[in-house]
Structure formats: C-alpha cells, structure tokens
C-alpha cells in the first residue's frame, strides 16, 4: 500500500486544480482560445491554422461538412490529439497543450461524443456517480462513499435527463436516445466550465430534441457550450453565434442568418449537401 501512496503523491503537482472550484481565469479574456492550430495525419491537413475563441458563458454552434475537422478540433481541445503547431488556452492561465485528458477534464472541460459512449456494464446510477466531480485520485476513489448531497445531485440529474426509472438498469440496455441523455447527464455531473457537445440530437425524437435544446440554452450563461451539429433546424433553434468550419479552418462566423447568406458557405454547403443527399 505504502507504494501506492508514494505513487499517488505524484498527483501533488496538480492539487491546485482539484475540480471542486475550477480555477479557470476568465477575468480578462475568452474561456477558450485557439490560435493557428494545425494538425495533419500523414500528409492530410485535418486542421489548417484554425483560430477560434469562445467567450465565457457563450453558446457556440459549429457547423461544417463532413471532414471539416469538427471532431478533430474537439480531440485537440480535450487533449486526445496533439496539434503540430498552434496554441490552445483554457482561460488565460492554462495551456491545454501541456496537459493530458484527465487533467483537462478535471480542469472543467466536458465532452460528449458523437457516438454515445457510456459504461454499458455499469448501472445508470453508477455511470453518473463516476462522472460526478470528486477527488478522482486512486486512494480517495477506493475509499469514496456517497454522501447525502451527492445522492441528491445524482437524483437531480436523473430527473433532468428523465432516467429516474432506469437508474438501476445497466446502461447497456438503454435505448439510443436514453444513452444520449445519460451521456449528457454525465456531462452535467462533471460541472464543467466548458461543454463540448458532438451531435447531441442524432437519433433523437422531436420532443427529445426540444428538451435537449432547452437544456443546452439553459446551461449557457452559467457554462460555456460548444455544439457541433449537422441538423440545421436544431442549430437554428439554439444558435446565437455560429462558426462554419471548412477544410480545417474557419470559413465564416456570425449569427445564423449572416452565415446562411454568406455566398462561400452556400457554395461549400450546397455542394456538400448535394453530395451527401
């Protein structure tokens, strides 16, 4: 055991970022700042000096044809992919390029995947429990007990995501939509400062979409939200500011109407959508 302790000592370095109160410094500047980021997978430039800033509390929609680099961008922000060049800052204090996934996550960046990934072997309740903000080092996790407030919080989220009845069922047996919700729920449990949401409404019914819309708009303000979505209707329903990605860099940015009337966007998009259709 003593070994394990000495090992978990290595966490000390990051103690100052214990997730409870996220230390992100947004007093003067945006919450997410990307500059001239470039990534290429053997030759092919997935991201091509992309620059993007997201302000604190903003709800930003990112649209763009397949292969525009939306997902890759998220990979970069969450530390899954390392860019060849460029800068990515979370607030003005944290250089995300120097951190790995868990560190970034504990910093307060939550991510929802395109394909809903939940822990199928675990019950819905346990999924949320794991996601909940807590001391996520080894030994604390080993001895962790659920206290009252925590349970309440989980119930709260179960309520919010409409999964209360499923709480004890293994996540594996949930429907696609329910999995989507569960994943969103897990995001909420993390209390992130910045949410990255990849195609949240894929495979959802109309009503579910609306609720998702409400949820996201509701979140905005307290937290910053970045939504990547194909479904234009949905985007329109929530969007305030929209960024259009094309071939790995920003093509246009502005309100929904502005971008929709932007000739380049139309050109690219219609071209695309015809292909897609």
């Amino acid at each position, binding site marked *: 055991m003593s070994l394990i302790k000495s090992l978990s000592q290595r966490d000390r370095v990051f103690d100052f970022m214990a997730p409870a109160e996220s230390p992100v410094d947004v007093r003067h500047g945006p919450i997410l700042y990307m500059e001239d980021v470039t990534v290429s997978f053997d030759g092919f430039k997935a991201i091509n000096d992309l620059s993007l800033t997201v302000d604190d509390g903003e709800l930003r929609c990112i649209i763009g044809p397949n292969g525009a680099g939306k997902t890759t961008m998220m990979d970069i922000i969450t530390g899954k992919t390392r860019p060849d060049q460029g800068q990515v800052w979370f607030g003005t204090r944290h250089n995300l390029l120097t951190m790995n996934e868990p560190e970034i*996550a504990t910093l307060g960046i939550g991510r929802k995947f395109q394909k809903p990934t939940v822990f199928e072997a675990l019950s819905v309740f346990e999924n949320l429990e794991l996601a909940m903000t807590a001391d996520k080092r080894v030994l604390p996790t080993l001895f962790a007990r659920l206290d009252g407030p925590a349970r309440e919080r989980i119930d709260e989220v179960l309520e919010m995501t409409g999964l209360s009845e499923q709480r004890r069922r293994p996540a594996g047996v949930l429907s696609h939509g329910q999995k989507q919700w569960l994943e969103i729920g897990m995001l909420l449990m993390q209390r992130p400062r910045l949410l990255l949401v990849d195609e949240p409404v894929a495979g959802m019914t109309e009503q579910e979409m609306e609720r998702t819309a409400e949820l996201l708009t509701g979140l905005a303000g307290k937290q910053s939200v970045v939504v990547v979505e194909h479904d234009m209707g949905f985007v329109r329903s929530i969007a305030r500011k929209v960024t259009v990605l094309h071939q790995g860099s920003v093509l246009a940015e502005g309100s929904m109407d502005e971008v929709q009337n932007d000739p380049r966007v139309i050109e690219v998009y219609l071209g695309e959508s015809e292909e897609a259709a």
Partner: protein
Amino acid sequence: MWLTQPFNERSTQLFIGVLLAAMTLVTLLHLVVPAGHPLHVNAYTVNLFGKYLSYALLAVAVDLVWGYLGILSLGHGAFFALGGYAMGMYLMRQIGDRGVYGHPELPDFMVFLNWESLPWYWQGFDMAWFAFIMVLLAPGALALVFGFLAFRSRVTGVYLSIITQALTFALMLAFFRNEMGFGGNNGLTDFRDILGYNLRSDATRLGLFLATGVALAVGYVVCRAIVGSKLGRVCVATRDAEARTRFIGYRVERFQLFVFVVSAMLAGLAGALYVPQVGIINPSEFSPIFSIEIVLWVALGGRATLYGAVIGAILVNYAKTVFTGVMPDAWLFALGAMFVLVTVFLPKGVAGLLAYRLKRRRNDADAHGQEVTP
C-alpha cells in the same frame, strides 16, 4: 469500515460460509474420524486441498485484473513464483546446518557450486518477518515497475498479454541460470520446518491448509471490497471504455497500476503458501504455459466473478489430479478441449450459469461483471 462492506453482499456471505464450512469439515474428518474409516481424510488429501486453495487464491488474483480491468496477464505465474521463491529462501535458511554438507549458513547448492558466502539478496531471509514482507514486496515491486512502464505508454490488449508472457519467460530463463543463486533448475527444496514447526508432520500440513484457507478468504474479501468500491467501478469503466474514463477525469493508468500491483501481491502470497505444501519451488513455475493455464481456470470458472475463479481453479486441478492418475494420455486432450469448449461455448464460465439466476433477482455487484466485452 471499508473492508466490512463486502459482507453485505449475498455472494460474499455465501462464499465465505461455504469456504469456512469446507475447512472445518476437512479438519474434523482428518482429526476426529479414525484412519481407515471410509470418511477419513488423510494427510495426503489435506495437503492436496491446501494446494488447490493456494491455486484458488492465485486465480482470484488473475480474475481481479482480467475480469475487472480487462488486462489478460499471461505472466501472473511470475508473481506467484516470486512469492514462492521468497518463501523458499526463508525455508532454505531455516535448514541451517542440517544440509547434507552441514554448512551453518549456505544452502547445499551453494556449497557444491563453491560459493564462499551468501549473496547479498539472500541476507535477511533467515528472519520470518522479513521473508513474509518480501513475499508481498518482491512481486509487488516487479508489478509496479512493469505496470508503470506498460500502462504509462498505454500498451494494451494483445500487446500487453504478449509482453507479460515475455516477462515471465525471461524470468524463467534467468532463474534457470545457476549464477543467479536460486538453485538453478533444481530450485529450492528439502525444506525442514517453518516457524519452528516440522514441515514433515501432518499437524503442520493441516495448519498450512487452514492458513491457506484463511488467506483465500481474506484475499477474496479484499478483492470484493475493491471491486465493490467506486474504484472497482472505475476499473470496469476502463475495461469497457478507456478513452471515456479519461475524459471524465480519471488517470486510468494509475488505477490499472494499483489493481495490477494488488493482484501481483495476492499472487505472491498464493505462491508463498504453495511452496511449503508441495516442498519445492523451481523455475518451471515461471513457464508461460503455467501462466496460461491459470487463465483457463478463471475462464472456466467465470470471469469477473471472483468466486468463479475459485471454482475454476479447484475444478481444473482436481480434474488434473484424477486424470494424470488414471489416464495420463487423456489429460492433455481433456485440458486442451476444456480451453476450446469453454472459450467458445461457455464465455461466462460455470459462474455465468450460476449468476444467471442471481442476476434476475438483484442487479448488484454480481451482475455488472457479467456483460463482458473484452
């Protein structure tokens, strides 16, 4: 307290109950029932059971990493053997000047290899407490170093399995070398007594059997507590969706490392209890074949249900004892067939069948091991 947690689970209560019952039964049949009586259990059989139980503990250790962490270790025999060697070294030192050469300090094999003095790493093993600490520390340290490297660089799946195999293979070759000072191929043997009790008396054998039983019980509860804890759930999460676990803020490699080390220590403990009962430890325990066989026990018993591992270990080894006795040739066929049939038709093992009903009634800790998608 944390360790009492598991006793709330039905499965644990059941397991511990059965185990203790079996132990007392064997003890009574051995001591009370007179020899010659059909029900009498003789020392040989007690000894045999003791061996099975140590194997069972080893299986539990493997199940912990394979079942709950999804790491198929083909090198757990190495940890088992290291624990065994640590114990063996203590037992060797206990022989003292009763070796054939009557040398006060050096084991016989060192004498006829003309070693002047004990090598440094043999120091301290004359003290029981030191040896027993090493039983846990040696395998633990190896697991720590190996695991740290492997998990940090995210070596996973098949690759991990294969290099664990390489690890134990390398160790086997190393221990075969007589220069290593571990008795080479002959290993360590001809033990006399442990903690002052004569290893060749039936009483000691019974004692060892009981000790092993207790160790198994404790080991089981510890594992149960781990997998029952939030950490256990993180492990399962890692097993099923490693990336996701990272994105919600867990440093996966450290959890893997922690569990891996614990498991290695349990394996070491099992080895330490095994050696005095069979009376020899030699490099063949390091052989990759053995490590793979352990995995079979677990697979047969049922992954990710610790009791399954125990069942598997005892079943297979009992079968082995019987078969190699009556029809030696058939044994390898049977073993091989078992490997194939279990993996193909019985992916959840014997326990899978048992747990099926349990799961219906309650979907608690027992249940969530069952969806195994490696």
